[in-house]
């Protein structure tokens, strides 16, 4: 299979990463060589194999829902590129 320009643009949209036309072509080449390499997996018959989703195949442990850090609102907001009082600011989403 090949990953054409149209597919690259589709993935770019799904990934929320804008791509310039020129770069999309190079990316399409790169992705094709990577997927050509990945296609090797098709040599293996895995019809009877269970997928391995995690090495730690135990049920996840639960811990008490207890507040660990307190009064860090200021510190957290300090990292925001745009803020107003206690809020993160984003471009307008509702008219």
């Amino acid at each position, binding site marked *: 299979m090949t*990953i054409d320009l149209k*597919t*690259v643009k589709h*993935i*770019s949209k*799904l*990934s*929320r*990463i*804008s*791509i310039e036309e020129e770069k999309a072509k190079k*990316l399409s080449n*790169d*992705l094709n*060589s*990577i997927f050509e*390499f*990945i*296609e*090797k*997996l*098709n*040599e*293996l018959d*895995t019809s009877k*194999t*269970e*997928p*391995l*989703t*995690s*090495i*730690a195949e135990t049920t*996840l*442990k639960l*811990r008490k829902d207890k507040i660990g*850090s307190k009064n*860090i609102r200021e*510190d*957290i907001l*300090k*990292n*925001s*590129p*745009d803020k107003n009082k206690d809020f*993160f600011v*984003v*471009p*307008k*989403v509702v008219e």
Partner: protein
Amino acid sequence: MSEITNFKLCDLVDKIKKKELSSKEITEAFINRSKKSTKLNSYISDNFDDAIKRAKEFDSKPNLNKKIPGIPMAVKDLFCTKNLKTTAGSKILENFIPTYESTVTQNILDHGGIIIGKLNCDEFAMGSSNETSYYGNVQNPISENLVPGGSSGGSSSALAAKLTPATIGTDTGGSIRQPASFTGTVGLKPTYGSCSRYGIVAFASSLDQAGPMTHDVKDCALLLEVMSSYDVKDSTSVDFVRGNYLNDLSDNIKGKKIGVPREYRVDGMPKEIEKLWEKGIKIIRDNGGDVIDISLPNTNYALPAYYIVAPAEASSNLARYDGVKYGFRSRGENLIDMYEKTRSEGFGDEVKRRIMIGTYVLSSGYYDAYYLKAQKVRRLIKNDFDEAYKKVDAILTPSTPSSAFKIGEKLNDPVSMYLNDIFTVPINLAGLPAISIPAGHDKNGFPLGLQVIGKAFDEQTILNIAFSIEKNIGYKNNINDWWIK
């Protein structure tokens, strides 16, 4: 007295405990050498002033019962450090100041360590040469314009150049062991679940592990003791009894069964690597170990499976970088436009490539063909190891299929870059521990490493085998400080 920076971690701990050296003397020595070594570009940011202050504080009330009392250490910039900038080698985190400390760096602090700076790495740990870092290439102290390996390239460079007595890295597909091999140092990737992932900038969560990088196996055992702990803040942290790795370190490997997998003899592997492997095998035999031929039949499928699993997890983990709550933000006409421009300008090419691979293999219609298939292959690879461990206690392989290469040499060919990790990736997929130790040099005088792979949670055995090989192989790094005028 010889240069303080020439001492290894255990020696420095010993000298502090005997009060032959103060924390301030040691910390200043490594900071001064770091300041003279900016040409290597090992650091992204430093914490020098604060570190000296902390060293003085330590000296005024020294607690010598700690494991690394008053010892300075620079760490990979993938570990979140409270109030200390953490970039993950990316522009998108250029101004990010964590409000919390990663568990592993907290363990280092709790055991008496002092953080002197944050070390360069491939962007979000995606790379094998440190060339994807937004903060520039890192020089390998072995030779000018040679890559230090990656992704923990700043760590391996700073360690080999003696800018830090020991350091820590993270390993998702070889990012500790390959740079260790490229710089003639020791690097260990612990069993998945041994070191907490809390506060480590996530790349591929089912594969990521933090581990020690040191000058020798003894130091490695000590630093692993410091780093490894059960942590409720990491849901995949495993509650097992951690060993006294340093105290129990022994070069007695009599009766140990060590497997040599035939699938690791790949085409085009330099003769020197083959010879070193033979040398390692001979050392094991001479010391009473039993060498057994084994087969890991699905080895060749590990890398393609990895390049589905790791990008898939990365695409999900990196979805959080949207320019809203922290990090870089670009201006956009609307919210979506802002997201797309922020991520386009904030991420480098390799990271974007992997996010897109991951997004694609998880997208509707392709999930079964790629992601599910890769997870099934991952099972087969783990089964290979399970089968082998019915017969052997550990496995010996080369660490990498080649020595370090020149900066720029492989940058335009992603697949050739990925092939660097052919011997290290299967171990991450199976969640096993593995250590790389320096074993010799290639024809250019560049270091080559051997890898010892262990059973899950059996770090002691691989440390012991590595210790025995280290004692007998007679490796020495030839570093002439070319970067210091």
